[in-house]
Structures are given as structure tokens and as C-alpha cells.
């Protein structure tokens, strides 16, 4: 077996690695994916943690999966089936709630209940964000041009980008500049007056970063939501049937159908390099496998300082990677439930249980949650994004029983005194206690509880410091700066050694764009 030679080896069977393998195999390259765990998917995995209950253990919704990947790899044929996740409710501290519903009239009526002014503003806010998303979205499908470079391809890319921004017109260009620099709280203050609305919107700007809603730079991530809406017609936003692991399964299935091979329980120890060129990999078992190209789907820290000898790389690059910010700030609590939670604000069974529940009653609440993390503690009253996947796909739990997925922020990787079993349980208790304030019956329903801290995320998936995006989606780490300047085009200083994880442009979420762009660059290079 070790005598076999591949055109390409992908290290890490996360969704980006699988996408890269799919594109390489589709182009006829003999491709092998090596995954350390017994199952592929990385942070997009479904596991039966408790008998009969299936959990999207880490990543839990699909938002920006690129339509071109769905088409190119024919993912529906291999099991992609995205189910609608239509609403969000934000329970309020006074016993009321703020709902966001799929129907525009229902949505407007609900907003009017709290602020007619905000309902009016929403129309224009939505249009502005639409235009900005239109301007920014092409970037998702583009290899980042280096603005400091005079190479024709870079200049071409910059010109294209400049054209996009110019077409915005002055007013929208100014708004874009604000969006790129302001805090989400300040940005939303310019538009809306109802606190819980601002808080719930700003929450999308803090996910996966070590920023609070009042931190400058947090507004930009608001755009991501609207970029998803541009693909709205494609209906690729929602909940994957069978959990996020089924997306990984679909991509893996497509890659295999194109001829790729996947080996699980195959941890790569290091990348073999001879004369400045990658020649293959050595597994933890000692086995060596040769390949013309090695692609790392791991995060930048592992890619540049674990898989290869950092001493063989330019010191500026190694320093850049050392300074690259991970700072995992989120945790996950997965619950197996004997029944459905009863929310005080909307008692009983209702459509709200088929959507998200956002614990984000005010900007102050979120900022206080951040304050705890800033000083090394997990949030006593955290921001939470809750979904009940079994309400959307009944196959996730036994009939009549349910699974609940709770994304929690903040849980700093660098906790005072470090994460221990006791701290993990205390964190889990804080989450359940917070939820119980809005859904008092929750504690009596819990059959099983899985609590995942950033330390657990790192231990299980390998993601450094448990950052779910392979590094923060902060402005200084995006586009031609991701992961570090001059090495943002999926290449590395080692010939034949490439990066394709979310630590490269355009970054995290189950987008697959990094894997696709890396594979296309590899194919372009070898032409």
C-alpha cells in the first residue's frame, strides 16, 4: 500500500479538504484524503453521542455553502438535502419576545409590535445591505489579489474589485466603509431603536470572534448574513438532513465518485519535504505515502508549524502565523431531550420551535457576556443560538424525543486557571440555567448533556485554540491577509505544499470556498 503514489494527498478530511479532493479528482488527479478521526467532516460531523440521538456535534447549520460547489460536485445526488430553518425568536427579559418570520408581512407586523419606525427602517436597511453584499460577494469566489503586488494577475483582480466598489456609488461606498470599520452596535444604532433587534442582529457579527458588539470591526460580519440571502433563491441556507455530517458525507461521496480515496484513522505526522519540495506524507503509524502535491486542510498553525519544520520556512511567515489570532471564544452544548422546551414567551408547541432561538435580549447583555471573557471567564449569562434539529428532521431523535443544539459565546480558550472537568460542567450549568430562565421546563427534559469547551473542540477536531473558523474572521485576518500577507493564495514557500482550510480566504462556515479555490489554483498551476 505504501508503495502507491498519488497525484495529490489532502491532509485532513474536513469539508474544505473534501471539496478540494472532489475538484482534484474531478480533474482526473489521483487523490487521497487522510483523516485522523474515524469519520470525515472535521467540525461538520454528525455523531450519535447518546443512543438514538444524533447531533451535529460542532457546526450545526449551513449558510454559505457555495452554489457552484453544489453544482460542480452534484452534491444533491450524494445526499445534500437542505431543509428550511425559517424563523428566529429572541425571548426578552420582560416575558415578551421578538420574532423574525419567513413571511414579510408577518415579520413586519411583529416588528411593528415593538417599533414601527424600525419596521420601516428594515426595508431600507435590507436594500443597502443587499447592495453591499452584491459588491462584496464576488470576493468569495476570487483568489485574493495582493494589493502590494504588480503582477498582472493581482492587478487584474484589484481592477475588478475596484470596479465593483466604484459601481456602488458614493452613498453606498461610504456605508461600506462604515461597515468595515465600525462596531456592529454603533452601526445598528444608526438604523434601529429597538434594543433586542439590534442585539439579535449584532450577534451574527460576534460569532467565532473574540470581539463584543461594541468592538470596532464587528459590523463587517453582519454582511455575511446578507451574502447568504443573495443565494436565497438557491435555497442553500438551513439545516442539512441528517446533520452537518451528512454534508461532509455528500462531499466525500462526490469525491469518491470522481475517484478520490479516503482513509480514516490515518493521522498524518508530517509532510515529507525534499529539496524544498513536498514529496508526500508520513503517517503517525510510520507509513509513508508519496504524492506530487500535498494539501493541508488543517489550520494555519498546524499547516506551517506542525506538519512541516518551521525552521525551513521564512521567519516572517512563521512570525505571522505565530501572531495569527485563533482565540476560540465559543462553546457548544448538545442536549438529548425527552420532550419539547416550553418557552414562557410563547408557551406550547408552535412554529418558533422549528426555528432558531436567540438569547440576545440586549446589546448590554451581549457586551457583558463579552466582558466576562475579556477577563478570562466564561460568560455567566452567555449569548446562545439554539436550534432543535429534530423538529426539522425527525430522524435526528427517536419519535417524540428531541435533540437541542446550543451554540454558546463566550467561552474563552484561555480560561483563568485553564479548563477542567469541573469548569466544563460549571459552564454547562451556566448555559442550562440561562436557558431555564426562558424555558423553565428544560431541566426536567434533559436525558443527556454534552458540553464542549474550546479546549474540547481543539482536542477532538484539532482546531487550534478551538476556533471554529480556523482563526478569527477579523478584518486584519481576511482576504489578502488570510492567513498572512503574501501567502494568501493557498500556496506555501514549499513547492507542492498547499493550504486549503478555512484559515485561508474566504474563511469559516460550511462554505467550501477555500477548498475549491485552492484546488482550482493547484490545477491552474499544473497546466
Amino acid at each position: 500500500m505504501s508503495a502507491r503514489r498519488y497525484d495529490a494527498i489532502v491532509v485532513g478530511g474536513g469539508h474544505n479538504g473534501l471539496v478540494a479532493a472532489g475538484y482534484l479528482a474531478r480533474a482526473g488527479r489521483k487523490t487521497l484524503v487522510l483523516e485522523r478521526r474515524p469519520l470525515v467532516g472535521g467540525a461538520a460531523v454528525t455523531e450519535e453521542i447518546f443512543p438514538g440521538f444524533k447531533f451535529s456535534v460542532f457546526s450545526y447549520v449551513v449558510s454559505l455553502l457555495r452554489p457552484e460547489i453544489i453544482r460542480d460536485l452534484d452534491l444533491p445526488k450524494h445526499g445534500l438535502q437542505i431543509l428550511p430553518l425559517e424563523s428566529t425568536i429572541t425571548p426578552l427579559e420582560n416575558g415578551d419576545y421578538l420574532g423574525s418570520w419567513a413571511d414579510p408581512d408577518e415579520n413586519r407586523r411583529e416588528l411593528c409590535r415593538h417599533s414601527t419606525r424600525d419596521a420601516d427602517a428594515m426595508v431600507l436597511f435590507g436594500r443597502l445591505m443587499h447592495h453591499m453584499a452584491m459588491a462584496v460577494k464576488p470576493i468569495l469566489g476570487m483568489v485574493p489579489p495582493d494589493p502590494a503586488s504588480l503582477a498582472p494577475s493581482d492587478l487584474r483582480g484589484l481592477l475588478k474589485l475596484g470596479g465593483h466598489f466604484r459601481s456602488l456609488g458614493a452613498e453606498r461606498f461610504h456605508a461600506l466603509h462604515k461597515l468595515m470599520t465600525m462596531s456592529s452596535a454603533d452601526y445598528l444604532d444608526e438604523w434601529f431603536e429597538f434594543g433586542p433587534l439590534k442585539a439579535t442582529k449584532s450577534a451574527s457579527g460576534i460569532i467565532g470572534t473574540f470581539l463584543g458588539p461594541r468592538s470596532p470591526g464587528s459590523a463587517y460580519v453582519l454582511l455575511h448574513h446578507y451574502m447568504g440571502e443573495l443565494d436565497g433563491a438557491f435555497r442553500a441556507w438551513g439545516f442539512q438532513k441528517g446533520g452537518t455530517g451528512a454534508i461532509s458525507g455528500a462531499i466525500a461521496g462526490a469525491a469518491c465518485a470522481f475517484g478520490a480515496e479516503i482513509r480514516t484513522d490515518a493521522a498524518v505526522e508530517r509532510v515529507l519535504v525534499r529539496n524544498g519540495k513536498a514529496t508526500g506524507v508520513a503517517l503517525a503509524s510510520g507509513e509513508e505515502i508519496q504524492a506530487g502535491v500535498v494539501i493541508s486542510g488543517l489550520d494555519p498553525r498546524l499547516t506551517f508549524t506542525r506538519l512541516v519544520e518551521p525552521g525551513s520556512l521564512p521567519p516572517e511567515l512563521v512570525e505571522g502565523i505565530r501572531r495569527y489570532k485563533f482565540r476560540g471564544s465559543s462553546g457548544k452544548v448538545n442536549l438529548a431531550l425527552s420532550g419539547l422546551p416550553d418557552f414562557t414567551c410563547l408557551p406550547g408547541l408552535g412554529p418558533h420551535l422549528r426555528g432558531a432561538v436567540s438569547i440576545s435580549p440586549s446589546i448590554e447583555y451581549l457586551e457583558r457576556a463579552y466582558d466576562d471573557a475579556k477577563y478570562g471567564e466564561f460568560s455567566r449569562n452567555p449569548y446562545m443560538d439554539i436550534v432543535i434539529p429534530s423538529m426539522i428532521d425527525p430522524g435526528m431523535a427517536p419519535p417524540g424525543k428531541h435533540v437541542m443544539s446550543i451554540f454558546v459565546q463566550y467561552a474563552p480558550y484561555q480560561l483563568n486557571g485553564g479548563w477542567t472537568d469541573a469548569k466544563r460542567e460549571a459552564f454547562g450549568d451556566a448555559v442550562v440555567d440561562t436557558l431555564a430562565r426562558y424555558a423553565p421546563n428544560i431541566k426536567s427534559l434533559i436525558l443527556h448533556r454534552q458540553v464542549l469547551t474550546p479546549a474540547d473542540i481543539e482536542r477532538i477536531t484539532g482546531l487550534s485554540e478551538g476556533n471554529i473558523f480556523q482563526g478569527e474572521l477579523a478584518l486584519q485576518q481576511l482576504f489578502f491577509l488570510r492567513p498572512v500577507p503574501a501567502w494568501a493564495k493557498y500556496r506555501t514557500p514549499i513547492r507542492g505544499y498547499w493550504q486549503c482550510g478555512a484559515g485561508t480566504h474566504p474563511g469559516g462556515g460550511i462554505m467550501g470556498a477555500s477548498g475549491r479555490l485552492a484546488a482550482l489554483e493547484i490545477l491552474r498551476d499544473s497546466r
Partner: protein
Amino acid sequence: MLKTTPFHPRTAPLVRAQTWRRWAGYQMASAYDPHPDREYAAIRNAAAILDASPLHKYLVAGQDASRLLDRMITRDMTKCSVGQVYYTPWCDAAGKVIDDGTVSRLDDSTYRLTSADSSLRWLQMNAVGMDVRIEDVSERVGALALQGPLSRAILSQASSADFTKLKYFRVIETTIRGIPVQISRTGYTGDLGYEIWVEAPQAVALWDALIEAGTPYGITPAGVWALDIARIEAGLIMMDVDYHSAHRALIEAQKSSPYEINLGWAVSTKKGPFNGRRALAAERTRGAAWGFVGLDVEWESFERLFRAHHLPPHLSNVAWRTSVPVYRAGERVGYATSGCWSPQLKKSLALAHLMAPHDKPGTAVEIEVTVEHQRYRADAHVRQLPFFDPERKKA
């Protein structure tokens, strides 16, 4: 003004946005939610419950029942065993399709025929001199479709019958929570699914029993909008949309033979005399002038038309039912009659009539698309129907 079905007391309060439509003179929900996304998802992911009561239904019984139906439909009635269901078209003497529907053989000499259009007169005309009783039970019998991957699990909860033994296009008589019903493994979605036939006075109790048994399995009431997307994915035709009844067509060009609407497989070449036999044999020899096929609209070319207007592509979440011209190399070669965005396949699909030989699978054609009040053409490819055909449908 419109009639209501026996399930109306249960369905009406669920139609949140008052999105009603007509179906054969009945008031019917287009959707229960304001839009059909979730109802469609239930068909492919869990189970949807749909009111199919407006179908015309006839009991045909007696010594000559089989002979009557055999004379009428294009399939060979003598091969239909007790408990079997046929999907079939029936034609006029010129071999043009009058209607399509199902024939269920309920016992030795009793059959139920369903049709889109009222068929009593046509049945009676064909029954002259035969020993047969024809009864229009359209209002007496309610019909519910339970469609989706979990439909079998739900029925197994609600009934003691063994549904693993009920094969595709077979029917059984049983009870659901004590209510006498007939359950056929049929439907209009191309998925695993069943249709349940019940006496109208028991309809509400049946609905309640199914909702109760189905709630842990995500049972979801669904309307015609959701059904329409599913049936296009399944390549199933609809009268008055994809073809016109030979009894209603005003000109010859509006009529279609079974071969021209992808139902050639349902025309028996061996059976005895039946309506349209000679014309159909001749058409088979000379080859049909038209084919009925799927079109798969190429996304990039579709998106490009919108991008030229600085717009993201717009796709309705409801199927369209208007005639749209189809071209090949600049020549008009046919027309599409319905289409939709398929949430399952992530493709823009259409059903189309194309002149031979342009109906061969893989043929590159162009379909008219209107963007910002202007007409353009998007690239599309001819595909064999159905677009979507999961194993579970027949498994």
C-alpha cells in the same frame, strides 16, 4: 360558491394566509403556510398529508366491469390482479388522450377509477350493453395522500396492517384507529407514499388519527403548491397544464396522444380492442411527432441574464404553469408547460413538449426567460423523466 371537501373542517383553520385555489370545483389550499417551502420539504424529508378529495372517483362493479375498463383504458385490464392499481391514460377513437388516472381492482369484479375530469358520461357511453354498475362516489369518498419517507412509519403506528408487504401500486383494505379505509401505495410526488380512501363521514376522524400518529414523525399538512413542485421533479403530468383533454381541446393541435405525453409505456401493444387502438398502432409505426421531456436549465446562463441587470437570480418558490417557447439553434422546437426550482436537486426544471427529433436526452436547447420585462433565452438540456426517482419510492 365552491364546494368543500370532507376534510375542510380540519384544513380550513390551518390556511394561515387564506391562500385558496380551485380544484375541480372544490376549495383547496394552495399552501397552509404563506409559502410552501416547509410543506415541500416534508414531502422529501418526513411526511406530508395532502387532501386529494377533489379527484373524480367512480366505482365500477359487475360481471363486465373489467371488460368496460379494458375497452376504455390503454393498459391491459386482463393482467390486473385483485389488489393491484394501474396508472393509465384513456383515449378517444383518434388515439388522443381524454384523461389520465388510476384504476384500482378492489375485488374480483369491483374497481375504482379516479380521473381529473368528470368521466361518468364517457363510462356510460362505453358500457352500453354491458352488465356493469357505475357509481359516481366523488362526494361520498374522501382521499388523503400521505407522502414522504416517513409515511410508512406513520401508517404502521396508526394501523395494524403490514405495510412492508404493500408493494408499489397495490391497494389493501384495512382500518386506521378503527376507521375502515382503503390504502393504496400511490401518489403524485414520486416518493414513498400512500393514498387513503375513506367514507366522507369518517374523514375528519381519519385526519385526526393521522395527525396524532404522525406528529412525532413530523407530519405536515401540505397544499397544492408543494405538490406541484414534487410532481414536476417526479415528471408527472397534469391535465389542463401539461396537456389538454381531447374532450376539451378546441383545435386538433391542442390534443396529445399518450406517446406525446410520455405515456407510451402505458399503451399495451398486445391487448384486444380498445378506444384508439388503431390510431395508436399507426402512430407507433410512424413514430410520434412530439416528445414530452424534462428540461434542466443551465444555472450559469440563467444567472448571467440577471447579472446583466445587476440582480441576483430570482426563483419563485412556487411552480410556474405558463407556456414558454423552447428553441434549438434559433428555431422554435416546442414549448415548456410547467416548471419550478427544485429545492431537492438544486436545479431549475421544466416539463416540455418538443418536436421529434429534438426530444432526445442530452439535446442542447434554449428556453425563454423574462428578466426585467425583457425576454431572453437561457441554455437548457433535454433530460429523461423523472428528474427525481428515489429508491424508497418502490422499495
